[in-house]
């Protein structure tokens, strides 16, 4: 019997056990502990939820897998959460409300949540088996995407010092991977389709500054490239063939071409699927009020044609913040449903009022996660300052550009609040702009005052590039002293460390020392 007496705790089934599901579980935990909620989590992977954002770092050895783990199975089980991991759901009976797993087990639900996330997208390339969007690809040796722990293991063997690594895709993930792998000593070629890297997040000036940074890090860039084929040698990656006939050889290929929502099960179950599983502003699927979807697998698209909140998406953002926000919101909604019988006991947790809608961050902030280069971008960035002076555009664009120093800022506002931004090489300004964007706060009418955060005249700062600026705080070594050491013939970080003690403390300043080495030696050579 699937139907039981009405007063038992509601049964919630979550499909998927990624970071967003993990966050949802954490939020629901108090109700599980009080037996107000029965929670079953079904995950296709056998590991507990981990933080995908750091897969690249894991592969390249800079962090432990342990750090990525977000949930403790034993603790959650002790709290009453049940798990079925390593077994995918094969079927959903929406009429009788139960799910069937690959091993034949069946579980009834009152409410079902899709948190199936996204799968890496692999373009159609000769030599690779075809991979429909939303499904995990089967790839030959030496080729990998970057999505799960298995991918990290494959990449680790491909990117050791001195190995030649081809990175396909000039988006955020490709950029981060190229820079991190180069840092780890791999010889990296970045192949991307657009004229410039990160074409969607940057305008031409910004992209040019970023491209120069890549070249300085000895990353070879192949722009305007259309990948056509993967050349294998004895079943192993040997080179990437481009549409123009040229070949890029290497020891490994990492495909960083975005991700596609995992929607197969939802589609098979008769739920409306567009790019993702279509949900309304309450995160409910449009076909079935007992089923919701959150995170990368969901696509908010309500019945209104011109709804401003339902932004057209073509792919998951790859960012985790919006998913977390949805998880928190959905948990509050689910608990509020529960609390119709039992009032909310904690005033700290605000349950959503009936009129409230789930958060919908159409254009989240992109922060490039890589040492030595601060790049932040958000929203629409393709407008130029003069564009707004013609016609009826009520937006305003302010821009600062100093490519020589690798600095660039662009603020696109409507009614004083940010609709888009780019910020490069100005880390404090970038951090402030991020906050202003996230909060929808009004910018000062003199936008240049924001740039002062990175200026030598900032109240608590000194010129980070001036000769008096302290580079190594642990040993109090100034840029001037390091330049003097360079002039004396100390030409690498270790040598400068021996001469001045700079960089021999916590090591944070090594990047700056490298930068000084580069600039100084270029000047000297010229």
């Amino acid at each position, binding site marked *: 019997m699937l139907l039981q007496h009405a007063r038992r705790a509601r049964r919630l089934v979550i499909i998927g056990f990624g970071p967003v599901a993990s966050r949802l579980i954490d939020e629901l935990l108090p109700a599980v502990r009080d037996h107000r909620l029965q929670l079953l989590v079904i995950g296709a992977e056998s590991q507990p939820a981990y933080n995908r954002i750091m897969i690249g*770092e894991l592969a390249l050895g800079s962090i*432990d897998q342990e750090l990525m783990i*977000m949930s403790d199975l034993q603790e959650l089980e002790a709290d009453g959460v049940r798990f079925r991991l390593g077994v995918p759901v094969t079927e959903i009976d929406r009429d009788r409300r139960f799910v069937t797993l690959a091993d034949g087990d069946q579980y009834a639900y009152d409410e079902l949540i899709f948190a199936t996330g996204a799968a890496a997208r692999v373009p159609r390339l000769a030599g690779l088996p075809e991979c429909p969007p939303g499904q995990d690809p089967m790839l030959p040796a030496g080729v990998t995407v970057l999505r799960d722990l298995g991918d990290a293991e494959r990449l680790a063997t491909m990117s050791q010092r001195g190995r030649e690594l081809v990175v396909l895709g000039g988006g955020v993930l490709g950029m981060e991977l190229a820079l991190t792998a180069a840092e780890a000593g791999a010889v990296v070629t970045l192949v991307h389709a657009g004229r410039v890297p990160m074409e969607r997040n940057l305008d031409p000036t910004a992209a040019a500054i970023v491209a120069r940074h890549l070249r300085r890090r000895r990353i070879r860039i192949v722009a305007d490239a259309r990948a056509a084929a993967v050349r294998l040698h004895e079943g192993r990656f040997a080179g990437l063939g481009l549409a123009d006939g040229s070949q890029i050889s290497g020891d490994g290929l990492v495909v960083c071409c975005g991700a596609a929502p995992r929607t197969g099960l939802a589609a098979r179950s008769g739920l409306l699927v567009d790019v993702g599983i279509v949900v309304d502003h309450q995160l409910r699927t449009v076909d079935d009020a007992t089923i919701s979807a959150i995170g990368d697998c969901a696509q908010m698209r309500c019945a209104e044609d011109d709804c401003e909140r339902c932004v057209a998406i073509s792919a998951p953002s790859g960012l985790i913040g919006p998913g977390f926000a949805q998880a928190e919101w959905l948990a509050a909604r689910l608990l509020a449903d529960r609390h119709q019988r039992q009032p909310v006991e904690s005033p*700290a947790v605000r349950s959503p009022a009936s009129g409230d809608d789930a958060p919908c961050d159409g254009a989240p902030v992109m922060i490039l*996660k890589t040492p030595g280069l601060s790049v932040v971008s958000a929203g629409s960035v393709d407008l130029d300052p003069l564009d707004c002076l013609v016609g009826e555009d009520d937006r305003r664009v302010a821009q600062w550009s100093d490519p020589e120093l690798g600095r660039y800022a662009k603020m696109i506002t409507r009614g004083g609040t940010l609709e888009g931004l780019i910020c490069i090489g100005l880390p404090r300004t970038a*951090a402030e702009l991020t*906050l202003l964007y996230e909060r929808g706060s009004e910018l000062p009418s003199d936008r240049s005052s924001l740039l002062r955060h990175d200026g030598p005249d900032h109240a*608590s700062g000194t010129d980070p590039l001036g000769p008096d600026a*302290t580079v190594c705080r*642990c040993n109090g070594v100034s840029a001037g002293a390091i330049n003097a050491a360079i002039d004396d013939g100390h030409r690498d970080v270790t040598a400068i460390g021996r001469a001045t003690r700079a960089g021999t403390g916590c090591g944070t300043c090594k990047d700056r020392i490298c930068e000084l080495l580069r600039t100084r030696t270029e000047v000297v050579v010229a």
Partner: protein
Amino acid sequence: MTLTRGSDDAVTVTGRDFPTNRGGLCRKGWTAAELIRHPDRLTRPMLRDRHGDLRPIGWDRAYDVIVEQIRRTQRDHGHDAVAVFGGGGLTNEKAYLLGKFARVALGTAMIDYNGRFCMSSAAAAANRAFGIDRGLPFPVADLDRANTIMLLGSNVADTMPPFVQHLAGAVAAGGLIVVDPRVSATARLTAGGSGLHLQPAPGTDLELLLGITQVLFAEKLIKNDYLARRAVGVGTIRRSVAALWPERVQSITGVPADTIREVARRLAWAADHGGCYLLTGRGVEQHVNGTDTATAAINLALLLGLPGSPDSGYGTLTGQGNGQGGREHGQKSDQLPGYRKITDPAARDHVARVWGVDVDQLPGPGLPAVQLLERLGRPDGVRMLMVHGSNLLVSAPDATRLQRRLADLDFLVVSDFVLSETALRADLVLPVLQWAEEDGTMTNLEGRVIRRRAVIEPPGQAKSELEILQELARRLGASSAFPASAREVFEELRLASAGGIADYSGIDYDLLDRDAAAHWPYRSESTPRLFTDSFGTADGKAVLVPVRPSRPVDAPPSGRQLTLITGRLLEHYQSGVQTRRIPELDHAVPRARLQIHPAAAARLGIDDGDEVLVRSDRGAAVCWAELTTLIRQDSVFLAFHFAEDASANRLTAAVADPISGMPEFKTSNVTVERVTSGQSGGAQFDGEEVA
């Protein structure tokens, strides 16, 4: 400091060479003598008459009225209808006797104090992590040798200037790290390579600390050996920070990701190279998540292996004069002397024995300040309140609402030495002693007990609170003795604290008069350094408690809203009731000034010196704009020293940390507008009308 009485009875102040200040005094210290003979001093008890005026009366009549009110209130509404509100500036002796008076003479559970607004979050965090709450578990002079000190939310250069000398070592080593949304005087010490200033958006300190913690794990900088030996709970911490990598924390706090990494690396390096300290202050503690934020700082310190090591550590910097001692001997709602828990049967037995009362007579735990104040004047709540050493109406949150609560009381008794804003609304005011007129002890931020000595006679009929409590207890027929001499009270406090966490049993006035360094716990000898072998928990191990970001009281500001930070100024002390009466200090900062960034001011059409109206959901305040680039563009700062329509606490919310009871003082959403010439300033905008 040292007081000298001249031939003409005038008192002068000089600095005393002491480890905390090394002979230095701040402006408040140098001018402290001016209040002793101030014309505003209260010299006689005053009772409100039929016309609503306070009129002088004799002590005998004052005692009669109080006892009559207590009896009637408790007969009609029960014992808990009479409440006591103490202060962190009271001597240990007064704090101790006040707690005993409430429990024994009044039989009420309802006692708490203004330290709830000050040290409670740090105290709660330290208690759950270390099992002991002593501000600095090491002598303050230990800081001198450190090459790295991270100060979180503490502007010592303004609030405790002589302390700055202890930062000199870290400044010289480029390792002073200051976390403050304002470019405070302390933050400016980091300039020129002396360290780093992190300027997070108000209310995001917890996320910042979790982000730094994430880097420690990510870069394998945690001290596994230390943790294995000395702490429990590391695994849960690792998971709790997995979702807070630096770039994400940047978008929450406004602190660049690379700076977060740099701080983590510097701290880890310093822990291995000659000393690293983390110190928290009110800036990170006075929040609804203050306990969790202090806990995050403690977790960070434990992961770095700092607490209990010979050259490193974690501590919190005390706010009020006796902020440490004031929180140890029974003014807290859940506490008995010696930092014992009132719910612990063994603690109750011990204290009942010392007091010579039946243990069943001792009330259980009462309510922390914000909840206690919320019950004032309610039909089934507190009907009569006795206030000692606290100017509630200025220092408690949501002042407009509190003013109504106070008005709803049947009877309000305030003991003070001037007519504070709270005393002005009392039914009965009792004149009490100033510091220079009384004997007693204080306990400083390093847990060191210090003598205070009377050097001058009190003016008029002003009396020691010890004497007042003795007489009231006698008239109420209390079943235990209430000594009136500080030395006798201390002797009793020694016995009551014996065996407790804050054990004073081995200390006496003779020892203190010899200037011995007496750090508690002191049974047979002083304990300058705690935690060298074990922590105060049952198994001796520190506890890492996982914490996570929580929702703020006010949503993050959007549009034209700004975040109001409240705090202190160099020139003023606490509610300003003392310092506003000292001409030199009052002239320096005579009126409430709202610090606002010129960019924000330009957007709002505000010029330097303009009169401005600041509004929040709770109320409004009127003050004057001070344009400065030393504050974030999204924040404004208003000191809480000022009263009436300039009171910053008319804007704050009476919403408290669920663990410590600390109110949210530092992240109120406000709007700021210029008061135009047609508006007549303050009178038109008193809080009640706007709210």
